[in-house]
């Protein structure tokens, strides 16, 4: 599955997107954040306060308890500051 990062999440990880294959136990958006945070110091730093991270699956905002089954693209980013 494709994962995208924006703003300071992207900067901390040092990647704008990548393709990951999480293990079978990773079922929700929250699980995915926990698993990504184990992939290195950059990831641990990006996800150090999971509560602040926003997520979208296939361009729709989702909560941490949303399943990632069937997702093509999952994005992680800080709270939005547009307009």
């Amino acid at each position: 599955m494709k994962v995208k990062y924006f703003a300071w999440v992207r900067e901390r990880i040092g990647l704008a997107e990548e393709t990951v294959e999480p293990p079978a136990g990773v079922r929700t958006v929250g699980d995915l954040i926990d698993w990504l945070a184990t992939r290195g110091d950059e990831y641990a730093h990006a996800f150090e306060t999971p509560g602040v991270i926003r997520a979208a699956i296939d361009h729709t905002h989702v909560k941490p308890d949303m399943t990632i089954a069937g997702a093509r693209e999952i994005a992680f980013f800080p709270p939005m500051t547009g307009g």
Partner: protein
Amino acid sequence: MTVPVTIRIQDADFDIAREIEALTRGRTDIGAVVSFSGICRGSEADQDIAALTLEHYPGMAEAEIQRHVDDALSRWPLTGLTVIHRVGRLVPGDNIVLVLTASAHRQAAFSAAEFLMDYLKANAPFWKREERADGSTWVEAHHRDDEAAARWEKN
């Protein structure tokens, strides 16, 4: 009749007069046009700002704005709607965002413009980075913007 809708995310500046003209030309059913333009300020909380850089989530940003434009069209009797959001590096005085709403009556135009701006501020996938004398930081989301957006939530 289909209501004309324009949604653009672009690096380039926009021309408010041209956008209003595009929305109203040849129409005689429009009684009210509200425009909101958001402009890059030169200071925030007494700190000078040299520039803002705006990042967005291509694809999601357009889709989400379209979804909120559709919501606005279902809530108010509008005769036209334009949303233009700039991305890239902007300096103080530069335009950031334009929302234009047209309707037969003023209240619909005002409400729809406020609704769309509240949405763009709190929930559209855009992020601002500020350049100041002491470095560059990502702008933090304001709680008041979440509250402003929340007042439009349906029960």
